């Protein structure tokens, strides 16, 4: 909302500096977005009378003009416009003037003719009206007088306000002035245009210049029609056109401009129809019928339906969409002489729905959908007539007024103590009344500590006690309310899961990975390119672009995109991780599930690294998070390398996958080299049983190591052999390290050699050679029996073995 300061002063005697006005508005919740000085630069522009227009030899586009600028001698000017004649009054920018657009006027010669100034087109003066010709002024002005004064175009300050959705009353200059006056303790008065005719108590049946029928009184709470005749349609007076321009609206013609002016001033949208082009000389408010359409003022044909309210003509043809936009059929044009003005109150939700469905927003709908004041309508109609009077407009009879259903505005009981309880203030009843009354609320004592408050019709946002508390706080000043800090009776902290998530992030940072933030939105193609099934993805109904119409089902598309980006920029083999949500259609398709499957996932991706890197990082995480029991099961997972991937299985099922990204997927992303990949379902992982946290004594007795090398089939996972070793050795096995894997001539086809160092130790004694030999024997026998393995060699070990079970 753009509000010229001078317009505010029409309603309240503001004499503050503009900075103070802006600060006050900010403090009232009418946030000032910008303050703009306008209309400066007209100081050197004066009214002149054209005395003589003459051709310049050798020039066919410009002419020599002599003007009377009020001085003793005529002033010569060269001019390229042809729209004025000798005797006309026009504006002259004298030598030395700097116009609003920054143009500096100097004396010069053109084609030999002297020019001491410039005759100005409207745009050169910062006025609406374009650049098609010189601004020809109304007769009667005195040559030599300043143009600004003659046109009432003083410099001004325009405040641009951000008006909250609950304050349609502040979408008018008068509404803003009312707030300011209330806060500053200034008088406030609305314009009082003369109302020459009494209203006809029209119910549509009374004979009048126009018939009005409201078929839907629930959606149209009030409908007033006023016929105005004798109008000469033409440009508005400059002061009015300029006020519109400064408030951000384009001047069109005096009738439309007057309607817009009233809306900006009082907040009441009105709509003028050309009565001659309104068949049946009547207006009818009804719901649209299925299949109906009309062409709106913007020239677009719009299909409407039975939830849309229409204004129709006397022959029931659509003439406008109620509260949103008028139709083109009865548009005002230069031939119009007789106008019927519509000023109505429409149900806000109805206008909001129609405006949203048609994707058609207008200044009118923006106000109606938030709720206008049905009592300001009479004033708005009278003001329209008053503004058009200079153009010959004469009201024909009084307004035809049909009243339907308007909001029930029962007074509200306000407990004085409640105000203090909610705000932390100690305002008494009198102070509260002093804050509310200037806004148009009417307070009256209603028993001990209670005020009965009548609600103004322009504040539809206020319906209950809490709304009044807000108004009291707003007018009192948020910053004057004494601050306190409530002491939380709780112990603050993170949940175990939140702490673990931080730990997981720190482990990955320690492992050298950088944290990425990838897009939640992906396209079907992004998923396919990653080997993921697009059919599993949740669909966005209204995506920004089709390529972002799915929610990611995995963190893979995002991280691969990030790796590709970094490779393209020659930033080396990057390691990245992300913690983020992924979404899936539920596979256990219960159609009544309220929400899709949403998983907090953690993924790690390392370019230039193979699957073993991902497994190593998993080991860091598993150890850091004390994941007690888990195993790797070689499986093919979507997007994963078919022979270099595994599912991570915990006590209660799969918690993620680990391995390498499928080479085809990498190729599709243009990624060179291998990419190690780990993706975990954080919630399932962290919900799994965690390692024992009871103390295990460190043995003070010596340990003994042996090395065992077995030949086993390629299909036998090392982890299984290791599990067997651990089981067979029982508590004596305190360490196991796979130190060598050999494939080649020394072993059979399809087999490989796996060599472990096993460390034995007892908590309570030194193991004897016999103890170790017995244990060794059990280990070898078990591995051979269970895995079809053969012992290749055995020796006393001499390696370092990591402490504890790994």
């Amino acid at each position, binding site marked *: 909302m753009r509000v010229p300061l001078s317009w505010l002063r029409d309603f309240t005697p503001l004499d503050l500096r503009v900075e103070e006005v802006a600060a006050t508005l900010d403090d009232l919740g009418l946030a000032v977005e910008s303050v703009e000085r306008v209309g400066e630069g007209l100081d050197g522009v004066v009214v002149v009378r054209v005395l003589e227009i003459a051709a310049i030899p050798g020039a066919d586009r410009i002419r020599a003009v002599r003007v009377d600028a009020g001085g003793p001698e005529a002033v010569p000017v060269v001019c390229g416009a042809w729209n004025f004649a000798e005797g006309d009054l026009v504006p002259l920018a004298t030598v030395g003037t700097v116009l609003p657009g920054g143009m500096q006027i100097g004396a010069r010669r053109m084609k030999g003719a002297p020019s001491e100034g410039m005759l100005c087109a409207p745009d050169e003066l910062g006025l609406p009206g374009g650049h098609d010709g010189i601004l020809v002024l109304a007769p009667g002005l005195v040559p030599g007088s300043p143009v600004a004064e003659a046109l009432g175009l003083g410099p001004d300050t325009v405040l641009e306000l951000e008006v909250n959705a609950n304050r349609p009353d502040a979408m008018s200059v008068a509404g803003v002035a009312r707030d300011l006056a209330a806060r500053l303790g200034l008088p406030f008065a609305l314009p009082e245009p003369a109302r020459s005719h009494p209203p006809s108590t029209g119910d549509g049946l009374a004979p009048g210049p126009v018939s009005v029928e409201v078929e839907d009184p629930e959606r149209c709470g009030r409908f007033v029609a006023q016929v105005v005749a004798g109008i000469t349609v033409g440009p508005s007076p400059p002061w009015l056109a300029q006020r519109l321009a400064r408030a951000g609206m384009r001047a069109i013609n005096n009738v439309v401009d007057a309607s817009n002016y009233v809306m900006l001033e009082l907040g009441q949208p009105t709509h003028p129809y050309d009565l001659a082009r309104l068949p049946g000389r009547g207006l009818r408010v009804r719901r649209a019928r299925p299949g109906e359409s009309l062409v709106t003022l913007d020239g677009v044909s719009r299909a409407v339906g039975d939830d849309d309210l229409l204004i129709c003509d006397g022959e029931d043809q659509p003439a406008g969409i109620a509260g949103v936009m008028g139709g083109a059929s009865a548009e005002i044009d230069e031939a119009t002489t007789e106008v019927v003005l519509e000023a109505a109150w429409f149900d806000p939700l109805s206008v909001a729905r129609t405006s949203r469905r048609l994707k058609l927003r207008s200044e009118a709908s923006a106000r109606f959908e938030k709720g206008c004041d049905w009592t300001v309508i009479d004033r708005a109609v009278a003001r329209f007539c008053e503004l058009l009077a200079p153009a010959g407009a004469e009201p024909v009879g009084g307004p035809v007024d049909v009243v339907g259903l308007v909001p029930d505005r029962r007074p509200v009981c306000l407990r004085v103590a409640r105000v203090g309880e909610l705000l932390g203030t100690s305002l008494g009843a009198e102070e509260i009344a002093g804050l509310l009354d200037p806004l148009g609320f009417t307070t009256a004592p209603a028993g001990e500590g209670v005020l009965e408050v009548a609600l103004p019709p322009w504040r539809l946002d206020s319906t209950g006690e809490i709304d009044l508390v807000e108004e009291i706080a707003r007018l009192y000043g948020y910053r004057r309310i004494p601050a306190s800090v409530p002491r939380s009776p709780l112990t603050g902290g993170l*949940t175990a899961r939140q702490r673990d998530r931080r730990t997981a992030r720190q482990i990955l*940072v320690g492992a050298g990975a*950088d944290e990425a*933030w990838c897009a939640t939105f992906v396209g079907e193609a992004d998923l396919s390119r990653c080997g993921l099934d697009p059919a599993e993805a949740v669909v*966005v109904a209204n995506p920004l672009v089709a390529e972002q119409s799915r929610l990611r089902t995995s963190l893979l598309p995002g991280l691969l995109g990030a790796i590709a*980006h970094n490779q393209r920029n020659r930033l080396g083999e990057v390691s990245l991780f992300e913690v983020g949500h992924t979404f899936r259609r539920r596979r256990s398709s219960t159609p009544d599930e309220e*929400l899709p499957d949403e998983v907090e996932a953690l993924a790690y991706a390392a370019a230039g690294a193979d699957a073993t890197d991902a497994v190593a990082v998993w080991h860091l995480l598993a150890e850091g998070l004390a994941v007690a029991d888990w195993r790797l099961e070689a499986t093919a997972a979507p997007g994963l390398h078919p022979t270099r991937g595994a599912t991570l299985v915990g006590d209660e099922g799969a918690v993620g996958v680990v391995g390498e990204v499928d080479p085809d997927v990498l190729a599709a992303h243009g990624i060179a080299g291998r990419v190690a990949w780990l993706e975990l379902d954080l919630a399932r992982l962290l919900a799994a049983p965690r390692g024992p946290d009871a103390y295990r004594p460190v043995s003070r007795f010596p340990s003994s190591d042996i090395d065992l090398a077995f030949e086993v089939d390629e299909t036998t996972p090392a982890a299984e052999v290791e599990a067997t070793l651990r089981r067979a050795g029982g508590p004596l096995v305190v360490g196991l390290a796979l130190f060598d894997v050999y494939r080649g001539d020394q072993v059979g086809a399809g087999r490989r050699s796996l060599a472990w160092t096993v460390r034995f130790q007892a908590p309570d004694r030194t193991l004897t050679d016999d103890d170790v030999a017995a244990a060794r024997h059990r280990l070898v026998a078990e591995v051979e029996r269970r895995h079809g393995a053969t012992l290749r060699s055995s020796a006393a070990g001499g390696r370092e073995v990591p402490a504890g079970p790994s």
Partner: protein
Amino acid sequence: MSARPDPEALVAGALDRVAAADGTEELRMLEAELAGKRSPLAAAKAALAGLEAGERRAAGMALNDARRRLEEAMESRRRELESSERQARLATERLDLTEAVPARRRGHLHLVTQARDRLEDTFIGMGYTVAEGPEAETDWYNFEALNFPAGHPARAMYDTFYLEWGPPESTLLRTHTSPVQVRVMERSEPPIYVVVPGRCYRVDTPDASHLPVFHQIEGLVVDRGITFGALAGTLDAFTEAYFGPGFRSRLRPSYFPFTEPSAEFDITCVFCKGEGCRTCARTGWLELGGCGMVHPNVFRAVGYDPEVWSGFAFGFGIDRLVMMRHGIDDIRELITNDVRFLRQF
């Protein structure tokens, strides 16, 4: 009778050889040869037994003296050799530590995570816990329960991504973290002191200051006797705890359907510390977020009695905070995942 050994002769040659020893290893062998069990000195000592007592004593003393001198010479030579050998070894081990060393890279948390952790920690210090909720939400949690009835014009303040899930427009990507307010109140009883960080979505074409995906943190306090003044005081305390001494907050009236009274909250401009600069449009204040007293209708939606409990809520953008703090002028930098960006912090 064997000739009486001449200790002097024995030692003189030995001393020369010790002095000429070229390394500790050679010296160790010399020691065995010259002073060991089979050395001439040992033999000479054994031969003493054959002498008569008077002579034996004098010869023994001479012999001991010779051995002592030899041992001293060997000890001294060993120290010399050890020292020079250590010097030589150290010289060969010399490293220029400014030369390239094997890289051991540390990763980096995303800036948004760093900010989120710090914000959480600040509120934890004030006695808050951290609550979370789903990003895909129902209309009920995102709007209806927060006092945005269907068709409410204020819904237009939140351009919403809807999901094809259930009846049209019944499921959406949350437009703010506020649905978690409702979830927390539904599952627990007051007093409540929580913050809710998380990712939110709005239909916004990406530009320097907008992304369709962004991060918010939200606070909710519900207890007996919570006032608007308590909201103002809490935000002020937070501002100082997070931004540092001298940073203040202020409230301006605003509108959110789920709070009343509602406010925007500003903080002292982080660039000019309140002096007034271009970023804060010379006001000395930067807008940080929205807040207000929990609307009675929200309490009613979760079954709390608004006559018994009162509370406040506040929320702001983490990304914007990050941009302010680090002088990032284009929010899209946060999602490039370019390591030249990620590794700066």
